[in-house]
Each structure stands twice: as structure tokens, then as C-alpha cells.
């Protein structure tokens, strides 16, 4: 099996092809950006830990699914997006929801089936997307959302808008036929889209060697676009690969497949004891925790004090406490609503997501097309 371990080890981006790469501008992460990246990862970890506690307390119907160990991927990738870009976010990617503006109380309320959850109790766990924040929520069938994200990208391309779509899937779903359909369609139509492949070593209990004979990132060039492998536990490496891919997509250079190599540090769900994971493998990945590593880097390379880092952690803990209380206060949904909303009365545009990267605060970097979507839909 071909691997690009060298590239992964130093957190650099490896380009399989240079198809469609225009002039890619230099990265620009300010101190505030780095603080944000750290904060969102800590927030994801803390929110999921709190969710797991609520599950163990019997307050979460069904099971519980998290992305422990994968926080750098959803945070680093979503952080590059402009307000009018769109996402389909998957079940290990809570950080992307937070970057785009979902608050942890609504996430926790969703897990508990409460009225104030993002879906109001219509769907559970991570099956949500806040339409007011530019996201279309996932379904359980994988990788269905990649094909839907293609459609959003197609709309942007047809209208000549400089907007992109971004979506996620695990390495497990690359075995499904729809993955081929989606990649091929994106390649043929050279869509403005970024595919984030999270290789977390296992599809539930099935290891990489039983999932594929060739690393899926190697397939990218056969679809006519770039494939890149990065260290998925390095938030700035993920950010950088995503930034390059997003700029390529936005400038007409087509899709990019970014494989983020990582490890799912919890079971597939809370019911899964991970007995199939070799102990040494787990230990090895424990040493590469994306949050601890970034904390060290902030202090060692980016001029943060240990106190700054600790203050962020404490701040997030307090915020999650507050959000958990709020979620617990939310009522259960009215049973009358069970039969409501099957059909739409009218189409409504998705709202825009938050775009906290400092780049988007600059004059002229609005990420908007010449005509806004709402103007078009009114016309």
C-alpha cells in the first residue's frame, strides 16, 4: 500500500498533481486565528465529553458518537471558509459546526432530543446541519452528502459565483459505490469543492487493510484532480491544505481530495469498547493528541504563555457548563410536531455561516459573488 508517511511526519502538504493550481497566496494566521483554532478544538473535546457524560447519565436516547482525536480536521478545514461557502458536515466533525456558529447548547440539546436541539428532536446525535448557518445535515448512509455537496458546488459554478462547497467522509465510505459516483461527477464537471477524507484507521471495527487495496487518496488523480495527504492531528497542516484547496476551487481549478490521517480515539459509538484496536497502536496515537500538540506549539513557536493556553481551556470549560445547563433546561418537543414539516410550503435560502478567519475580515474578502443568493432568489 502506498503511503506518504514522509509528508505526514512533517505536517507538510504533498501535491499529487499540480492540475489547476493557480497562484496560491501565502498563509496568514494571526495570533487571534491561532487562539481560535485552539479554542474550537478544545470546545469540541469539552462538548463531546459533556455529551458522553449526559449519555452515561441516561439523558441521551440511542447511542453517542464523537470525534475524539479528530478535532484538528473539522476545525482546521472549516476555518478556511467564507460566509457564503457551504458545508455538509459529518459525525466526527463537531468542530466544523462550532466554527460556522452552532453553539454547544444546541448540539447537546439535539443529542438529548430536546426542542431546542438543531433539529428540534426530528433527528438525533450528529445528524444535523443548521440551515441558517450554511450547512445541510448528514444522513446515515455514507458518503451520500458528498453527492449533495457536489450539487451545491454545481449551482455556484453555473451561476459563476466564487463560492465553494466542503464536505467530509471517512475512509470507510470510500468503499461505497456512491463515493465513486461523487468523485467522478466532481471531476467531470470540475466542481468548486473540497473533499476532506478522514482516515481514522477503522470503519467501525474494520481496519484499513480490509477496507481498500490502495489508499483512496491515490485515486484522486484518476478522477482528474489533486489528492493530498496531511497529518490530520496537526490543525495548521489541515488548515493549510484546506486553504490551498479552497483557493483552487474558488478560482476554477476544480476539486481536491485531502486525506487527513488520524485515529478515532473512542469507539464507533459509546457502546463500542474498541477491543479490536491493538494496544500499541492506541498508545502510539495517544502521543499525538491534536490539542496537546497544538498547545505545545502555541507556547513553543507562536509566543503564547502557558497561562494563555490554560485560560482558554478554563474559559471553554465554563462555557460548556453554561451550555449544558441551558440544554438541560430545554423542554422535550411537543408530540404534535411529530407529523409536521414533511413537506415544505416554500423554498428558503440557506443562511451564511460564520467565517472567523481574519482573512475574511479584510476589505474585499467577502467570499460573496457579485450577486447575493437572496437577491437571485428574489429575482
Amino acid at each position, binding site marked *: 500500500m502506498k503511503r506518504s508517511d514522509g509528508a505526514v511526519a512533517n505536517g507538510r502538504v504533498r501535491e499529487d498533481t499540480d492540475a489547476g493550481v493557480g497562484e496560491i497566496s501565502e498563509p496568514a494566521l494571526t495570533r487571534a486565528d491561532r487562539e481560535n483554532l485552539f479554542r474550537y478544538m478544545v470546545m469540541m473535546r469539552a462538548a463531546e465529553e459533556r455529551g458522553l457524560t449526559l449519555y452515561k447519565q441516561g439523558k441521551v436516547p440511542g447511542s453517542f458518537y464523537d470525534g475524539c482525536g479528530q478535532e484538528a480536521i473539522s476545525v482546521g478545514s472549516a476555518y478556511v471558509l467564507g460566509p457564503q461557502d457551504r458545508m455538509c458536515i459529518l459525525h466526527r466533525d463537531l468542530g466544523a459546526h462550532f466554527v460556522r456558529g452552532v453553539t454547544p447548547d444546541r448540539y447537546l440539546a439535539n443529542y438529548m432530543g430536546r426542542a431546542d436541539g438543531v433539529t428540534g428532536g*426530528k433527528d438525533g446525535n450528529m445528524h444535523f446541519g443548521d*440551515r441558517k448557518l450554511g450547512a445541510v*445535515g448528514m444522513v446515515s448512509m455514507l458518503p451520500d452528502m458528498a453527492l*449533495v455537496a457536489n450539487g451545491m*458546488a454545481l449551482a455556484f459554478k*453555473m451561476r459563476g459565483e466564487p463560492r465553494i462547497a466542503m464536505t467530509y467522509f471517512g475512509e470507510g465510505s470510500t468503499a461505497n459505490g456512491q463515493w465513486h459516483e461523487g468523485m467522478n461527477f466532481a471531476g*467531470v464537471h470540475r466542481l468548486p469543492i473540497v473533499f476532506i477524507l478522514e482516515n481514522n484507521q477503522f470503519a467501525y471495527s474494520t481496519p484499513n487493510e480490509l477496507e481498500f487495496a490502495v489508499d483512496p487518496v491515490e485515486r484522486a488523480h484518476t478522477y482528474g484532480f489533486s489528492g493530498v495527504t496531511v497529518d490530520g492531528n496537526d490543525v495548521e497542516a489541515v488548515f493549510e491544505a484546506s486553504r490551498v484547496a479552497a483557493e483552487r476551487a474558488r478560482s476554477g481549478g476544480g476539486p481536491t481530495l485531502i486525506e487527513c490521517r488520524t485515529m478515532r480515539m473512542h469507539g464507533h459509538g459509546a457502546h463500542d469498547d474498541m477491543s479490536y484496536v491493538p494496544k500499541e497502536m492506541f498508545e502510539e496515537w495517544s502521543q499525538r493528541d491534536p490539542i496537546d500538540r497544538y498547545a505545545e506549539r502555541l507556547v513553543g513557536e507562536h509566543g503564547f504563555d502557558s497561562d494563555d493556553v490554560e485560560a482558554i481551556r478554563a474559559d471553554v470549560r465554563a462555557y460548556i457548563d453554561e451550555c449544558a445547563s441551558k440544554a438541560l433546561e430545554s423542554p422535550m418537543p411537543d408530540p404534535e410536531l411529530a407529523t409536521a414539516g414533511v*413537506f*415544505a410550503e416554500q423554498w*428558503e435560502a440557506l443562511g451564511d455561516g460564520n467565517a472567523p478567519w481574519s482573512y475574511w475580515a479584510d476589505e474585499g474578502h467577502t467570499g460573496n459573488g457579485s450577486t447575493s443568493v437572496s437577491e437571485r432568489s428574489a429575482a
Partner: protein
Amino acid sequence: MTDTTTTPPGSREVAGDAATEPQPDRNGKREMTYLQAISDGLREEMRRDESVFCLGEDIGVFGGAFKVTDGFAEEFGIDRVLDTPLAENAIVGAAIGAAVEGMKPVCEMQFADFISCGFDQLVNVAGKLHYRQGVAVPIVVRLPSGGGFSGGPFHSQNPEAWFVQAPGLKVVAPATAEDAKGLLVSAIRDPNPVCYLEHKGLYRYVKGEVPEGDYEVPLGEARVAREGEEMSVITYGSGVHLALQAADALDEDIEVLDLRTLNPLDTEAILASARKTGKVLVAHEATRSAGVGAEVAALVTEEAFEDLDGPVRRLTAPDVPIPFSPPLEQAVLPQLEDMKEACRELLAY
């Protein structure tokens, strides 16, 4: 198969194809085939609203397997008449995403049968998005359906019941040229996913006066195709024509109710007709068990039992795949004689 548009047995050939736009008469109506009416509705919506576009296999330069989009690529450009790879889930998935972002995609399945390959996107994604997330998905999936010309088990199916059972999808099945256009226009403008079943046997067989310009046939409204007092045939699609022919041939006072929309059903019109005549035959070309006919029969017995003068009967295909060889296929698909016999039996009850 290369040409499944062969005229069904006993039908009359009507000249003209989709690319030729018939000229209106003095009343602002044009005579056109069912196929031309579909094209006409699609073409007018594309002219009227630039967010409407088509995607599917071989629909662009080639104009579609049945030529519904013949000439469209020249008029609208290949970006709005998008030839896609042979990948039904990718087609429906892309339509969903584009619809969420303000486009109004019209997908063509080359044959209704092939929607099985796009089932997941349609049923699990499109049908549930509004219920789960409040996201409207205004897509139309055109489904050339039906048998009668040796298409065999994979080019002849009537899969409407699959979608009537999937919450969140609207399902329409026009029988006339006027409805073919008006229902397509309504489907395109509806904010929900709509399965549009166009019966291949009606493409060139059915011809009628179609109003010029912009009109809608509202979703969810049935139509009385023939007034009668003695019994009702409640049907849709190709069944409407069988029922009308049978009623004329028998010269009996038979009412024919054309459902037009299968989800949501026009329960009022169904019950009104059942109560009026007291005898109901439900007919469709699709297979029998748990079909649309079963739903109509259950509705009538639940809500109009007191008004019935006989059992609710069904005339459908049996629960078998559609066979290829003409005598086998004719044994499976309801024929005019079957319709006449079913009506005679119920009238005599």
C-alpha cells in the same frame, strides 16, 4: 434497448416530435402529443426561469432517449441541459444540492426502472431533508415508466408505490397532454421533491389540446375524466385510457376518476365519486400488493363504507416482474378486455 417508443398495440401513431413546436390555434391552444406537452412545459419553464435546468444521461446533444429534450441544448446551452455520467445517485444528489442552493433541477431517469440506482439519494436525502432540517428540496425526477412494448423486466416498471410509501416525496402521473404540461409546471414550481411518472406508452399515443403559455395543474387534485352514476373507475396514467375505452365500448354509465397526483391523494374527490356511484374499481398497471390501488380501496372502505353497493375491486398487474415476450407481457398488463370484464362484473354485482 434502442427504441422503446414503438407504438403500443392498438394505438394510433401521431406525427411530430418534441423539437417541433406546434402552432397555436385561434383559441390559444395547440394540439400536441403527451411527449410534446412534457417538452413544452419544460421548455417554457426554462425560458421563464433561469434557475430551471435539466440533468440526466444523454439528454444534451442527443436530446434524451425519448427525445423529450430534443433541441434543448441548442436553445439553452449544454450547461443547462447537463449530460451526466451514468450514475443515478450522483444525478439525484447533485440535483438536491443545487436545489438547496436555489436552482430548480429537473432530473431525467432514462427509464423509471433506473431510479432504483438513485433510490438512496431520493428517499433518504431528498425526502427527509425538510422534515429533519427544514431544508426545502425543489427537484423534479422525471420517470419514463410503463410497459406494453417488450421492454422486459428492467424497462417497463411502474415504481410509483415505492415513492408513495416514502414520506416527503410528491408523486404525480399525468394521463393527458394538458395534464402532462400542467403537472410538470406545478412540479417544477413546487418546493418539494416530485416524482413525475410519464408513461412511455402515452408519449405518442395520446394527443390533445394544450393551452398556450403559462398554466398549472395543481398537485393533489384529481379530475373526473368521464361523468357517470353506476360505478367509478379510479385510476391514473395509462389506466385512464383503458377505463375510458371500456366505458365507451360497454356504453354504460361509468365514471372515470383520473387521480393525476398519487401523493398527496385527492381523498375528497375519491370519496365523492365512491359515494356517488356506490361501486368502485381501482385500476393501475403497477403490481397489486400494497400498491396505490390498495390505498384507495382502504380509504374508500374506511370512509365511504355506508355508501357502497358492492366490494371495492382492483384491476392491476399481478405481483410479477414484467415479462419480455408479447403474449407473456399482455397476460400480465391489464388489457382493454380485462377492464371491460372488471366493469361488467362490478356493474352486475
